[in-house]
């Protein structure tokens, strides 16, 4: 189960990950089908890098994240994680008990700062809980660590004795981040960490996540549906559609020159915050396919303006079309698709207007 690493191994490598959920019906709860929530996906994340998973509701982002943290057992596939000691372990196949020494190295930040913190615990107890669990019995030591963590997330140490309700959404998200950092993890999985926050606070948290990454050398798997947020935070982006990765590339490359028609449509659909850029948008017809009954061939074909006969019968594999740019589309090499480029002039609001 454990392979010795060569130093160039990525921090995380996911190979052919699948997670299906049974659909049960009737009195006997017989299995009548499968929701293919995550359907054979592969990707890697290098140390210190941010990879974002994007896609619409139900495409399998959270399921992927939970499989990586082994909050869910994958149906199939490997999740190869490079541990602090430089070994590579497959967390998908290890028995749960054998995972304990690695758990603290992967931490989660949740979407909803309101429900993810226990309202009856003080900030100190919330952040110190993982420290205590990891065997730091000395209270002064824990206190010093919590103080240090609060400073890291730019909260005042005096806040330690307060309860979560006394904090705003952004402050609660900072508390959640401090807790996630308590045990010096190498991988942070953040599932929609800013989507419940106000716009002005979103920016503060995104900046904080970027700073912490530089300061602590963290690696992020960032799950989001907001492409503008993703543009700000990611080194690379993977686009999911009905349980599959349809395109993965460096951020700039993916936004400027998408190669998958679904990515193109997603980028086009994002409302641009400038009324001068109102223009013809690609409005996809129909709806996302049902992951319990995906169509044959390319899952996107019923909505794709470029579909040909082959798309209706043959599943396109995820193939490299340019260095580091992989796409699952039969026509990826021949289509010329439209991405988003810098707006024609600098956004006037970037200049001071007084």
């Amino acid at each position, binding site marked *: 189960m454990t392979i010795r690493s060569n130093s160039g191994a990525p921090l995380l490598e996911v190979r052919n990950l699948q997670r299906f959920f049974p659909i049960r019906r009737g009195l006997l709860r017989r299995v009548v089908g499968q929701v293919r929530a995550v359907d054979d996906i592969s990707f890697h994340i290098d140390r210190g890098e941010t990879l974002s998973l994007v896609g619409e509701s139900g495409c399998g982002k959270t399921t992927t994240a939970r499989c990586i943290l082994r909050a869910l057992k994958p149906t199939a596939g490997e999740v190869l994680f490079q541990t602090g000691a430089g070994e590579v372990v497959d967390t998908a196949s290890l028995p749960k008990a054998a995972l304990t020494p690695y758990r603290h190295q992967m931490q989660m930040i949740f979407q909803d700062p309101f429900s993810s913190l226990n309202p009856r615990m003080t900030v100190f107890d919330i952040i110190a809980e993982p420290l205590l669990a990891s065997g730091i019995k000395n209270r002064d030591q824990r206190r010093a660590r919590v103080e240090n963590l609060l400073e890291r997330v730019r909260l005042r140490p005096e806040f330690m004795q307060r309860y979560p309700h006394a904090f705003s*959404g952004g402050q609660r998200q900072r508390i959640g981040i401090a807790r996630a950092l308590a045990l010096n993890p190498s991988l942070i999985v953040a599932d929609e960490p800013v989507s419940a926050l106000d716009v002005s606070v979103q*920016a503060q948290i995104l900046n904080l996540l970027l700073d912490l990454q530089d300061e602590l050398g963290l690696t992020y798997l960032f799950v989001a*549906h907001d492409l503008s947020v993703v543009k700000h935070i990611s080194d690379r982006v993977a686009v999911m559609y009905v349980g599959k990765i349809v395109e993965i590339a460096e951020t*700039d490359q993916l936004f400027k020159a998408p190669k998958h028609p679904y990515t193109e*449509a997603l980028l086009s659909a994002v409302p*641009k*915050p400038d009324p001068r850029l109102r223009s013809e948008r690609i409005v996809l017809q129909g*709806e996302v396919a049902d992951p319990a009954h995906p169509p044959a061939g390319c899952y996107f074909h019923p909505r794709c303006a470029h579909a040909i006969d082959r798309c209706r019968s043959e599943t396109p594999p995820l193939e490299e079309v340019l260095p580091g740019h992989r796409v699952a589309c039969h026509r990826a090499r021949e289509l010329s698709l439209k991405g988003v480029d810098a707006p024609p002039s600098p956004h006037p609001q970037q200049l001071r207007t007084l």
Partner: protein
Amino acid sequence: MANREINGEGQPPVLTVNNLKTHFFTDEGTVKAVDGASFSAPAGKTVGIVGESGCGKSVTALSILRIVQKPGRIVDGEIILRRADDAEPVDLAKLDAEGGAIRAIRGGEIALVFQEPMTSFSPHYTIGNQIVETIRLHQDVGKAEARNRTIELLRMVGIPRPERRIDEYPFELSGGLRQRVMIAMALSCNPKILIADEPTTALDVTTQAQILDLLREIQARTQMSVIIITHDMGVIAEMADDVIVMYLGRVVESGPVDEIFHRAKHPYTQALLRSIPSIFAAPRSKLPTIAGSIPHPHNRPAGCPFHPRCAERMMGKCDVHIPRLRPVSRRQMASCFLYHEPDEAPIT
């Protein structure tokens, strides 16, 4: 009234809101949810109301329809609805909230679409039944005709196979289809004004694009006035002709959409625009931020409500006096002491 000039040329607006104040009288104190909102909604145009959570967008909408829940009530201002050309305008703020007059207007001349369509439908009746009911409540038509009209409405909002879908229950529909049905229901009585409160916030971007397109298409056809409420500056940029920016219950800036995005005057509008993550940004680029966070409604700052977070604040002025919404250019207004001096008396 200066705010009427914002929409300038053409006929008088269908709806004019003047200095609307809606407060909640809770045990912990008074929440000034809306504290002096003014704007007007012309036929065939879209007014966007934008601002962060708790700034009073939804309470503004509820006030217009007179469905503000206790302990809230309208304490000041007027909401003038201009009806058919010859009829007298009515002040909705003065109507009895339970009375027949507002009931006829609600769902008749003014329709509401909001974020979570599931809660606005009864789970026990088919969508068809619910729309037929609404039609027959406001118009004198038979069952069969109302049903035919419902099928037409469902077709118009892009529901595939409406003859079959009409007999389905709300839970059988996806979020996007449910929002379309809600729009169909809102349109069933040919409203002159459609208020859409975060109509696409719960939807995915591709579905959002479909719904926004649909709203534009219907407006072009019916010339109805649309008031779109959202926290998303992108949706405002796509949809609005005129924009109202709210902060803590007050309108801080208003004007045509191009002015708001390209020549914003109020420090809050400027800072908000700068802090939006942009799809055009360089990867891994930091965003300019606004210091602090929105105050709790019970601890509303004295003076300019934005002053604790404002980089331009002038102490002794901004923390004492309340700025009024005043013209700052021909078609734009802002409430900020960078553009006008305080009135003599500092108290409201």
